């Protein structure tokens, strides 16, 4: 019953979030502020994760390819495919669920318990639209940029690891990356990312907005936000994969 009630509450919240902003000028300013906070400040962690992720995928693939029938370019092909289809959009989104999700839930939760949200409401400001809409929209626009960046760095990481370990040549790796390339894979990855961005920011905002109590409860909401967003990403990933690839 609790879960159904929460889902209902979540959809009602989203209905209010997507109402017209009080002033477009203020929305625009908040949108860019959130883009910096949620997106630009996530670049270092995304870069680090992606480079090592790509390096490990390439090394794992190369070291496990002992069948002589498999062409050498398979390493590049597998690195590219797993990075574009799964690792960059899903794993990076899970990382962002931790970083951005907890940040949003604790920020909004603190505003709730310190009555800042009540202050907004009493002034006549639609607090949900003012606080949550810029977060959701900026993430939905900037996360795909982060994922493109992540894909690029992951492939570079793979190349560097192969180069340094001597497991494959640059030409073979690049040939593998370009082999049987489909634009639709990128479309699939970016579509997934937009959905994940929406889930991360909206679930974290929901958990933060309905925080009750004090600072301890803000921490609890933050943890719940990360867990719920991660579970939602995994479930959505399953359905999106079925929809797009099967």
């Amino acid at each position, binding site marked *: 019953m609790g879960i159904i009630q929460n889902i209902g509450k979540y959809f009602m919240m989203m209905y209010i979030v997507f109402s017209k902003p009080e002033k477009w000028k203020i929305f625009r300013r908040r949108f860019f502020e959130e883009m910096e906070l949620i997106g630009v400040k996530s670049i270092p962690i995304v870069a680090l994760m992606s480079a090592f992720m790509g390096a490990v995928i390439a090394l794992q693939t190369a070291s496990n390819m002992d069948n002589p029938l498999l062409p050498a370019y398979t390493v590049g092909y597998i690195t590219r495919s797993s990075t574009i289809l799964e690792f960059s959009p899903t794993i990076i989104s899970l990382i962002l669920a931790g970083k951005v999700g907890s940040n949003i839930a604790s920020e909004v939760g603190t505003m709730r318990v310190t009555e*800042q949200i009540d202050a907004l*409401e009493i*002034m*006549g400001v639609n607090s949900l639209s003012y606080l949550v809409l810029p977060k959701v929209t900026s993430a939905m626009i900037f996360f795909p940029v982060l994922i493109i960046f992540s894909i690029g760095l992951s492939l570079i990481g793979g190349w560097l690891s192969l180069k340094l370990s001597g497991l494959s040549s640059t030409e073979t790796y690049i040939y593998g990356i370009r082999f049987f390339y489909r634009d639709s894979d990128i479309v699939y990855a970016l579509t997934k990312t937009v959905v994940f961005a929406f889930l991360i920011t909206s679930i974290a905002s929901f958990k933060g907005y309905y925080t009750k109590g004090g600072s301890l409860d803000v921490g609890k909401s933050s943890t719940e936000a990360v867990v719920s967003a991660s579970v939602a990403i995994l479930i959505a990933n399953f359905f999106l994969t079925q929809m797009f690839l099967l």
Partner: protein
Amino acid sequence: MIEVINVNKTFGDNQILKDVSATFEKGKVNLIIGQSGSGKSVLAKCIVGLHEVDSGQILYDERDFTKMDRLQRKEIRQEIGMLFQGSALFDSMTVEQNIKFPLTMFTKMSKKEMQERVDFCLERVNLTGKNGLYPAECSGGMQKRIAIARAISMNPKYLFCDEPNSGLDPQTSILIDNLIREITYEYDITTIVITHDMNSVIEIGDNVTFINQGQNWWQGDRKSIITTDNPEINDFVFASDFMKEIKETLKKI
């Protein structure tokens, strides 16, 4: 003037407000007092619309707030200033940005006009030149004064103060009380103060409403609170032996 007529509010099986009726007059400091858990904060939250009432009416100068839709309420809310118990200043904004916030959201003032208004409000609460500070850099008393400045920035018709003296030393409390009283008289606004502070009751209570067990138990001014024989209000206001002695002395005078 704000009128509360037969307001009831229940949370689950717990009825917090029982047929509460009260009148809060314009140009006066109206206090709501009562023990913790008596329902005074719930009453205040019902008046400003943070809680929906189960039944009854809340009239803002004869405009029934309970029957209004979101847009109509929004208009009323722009006539309300509120000082929260914990100040509720926006941490991420400077003092100036906090005061400017409602002006940016709801007015078409030019930058220059906004700046003048901010400076005026800061001067009014004796915080001239503190524009660039962040709330975390200010003391509790300063935060309350900044919150008052923000509350008056839109020239409100109604001012709500939730425990304005909580966590403040006696001197700063008096300063805040005096500020609230001066602003009320100066701008002829309807001020409602929720308080536990007996010093505030005696100092600024033009009209005092005593809420007990979710009901309006007693209403009067700061002079009649001293002379009343109502046992509940005497137990609350003059709880200590020292205060009882003061009451007896004052009665004799």
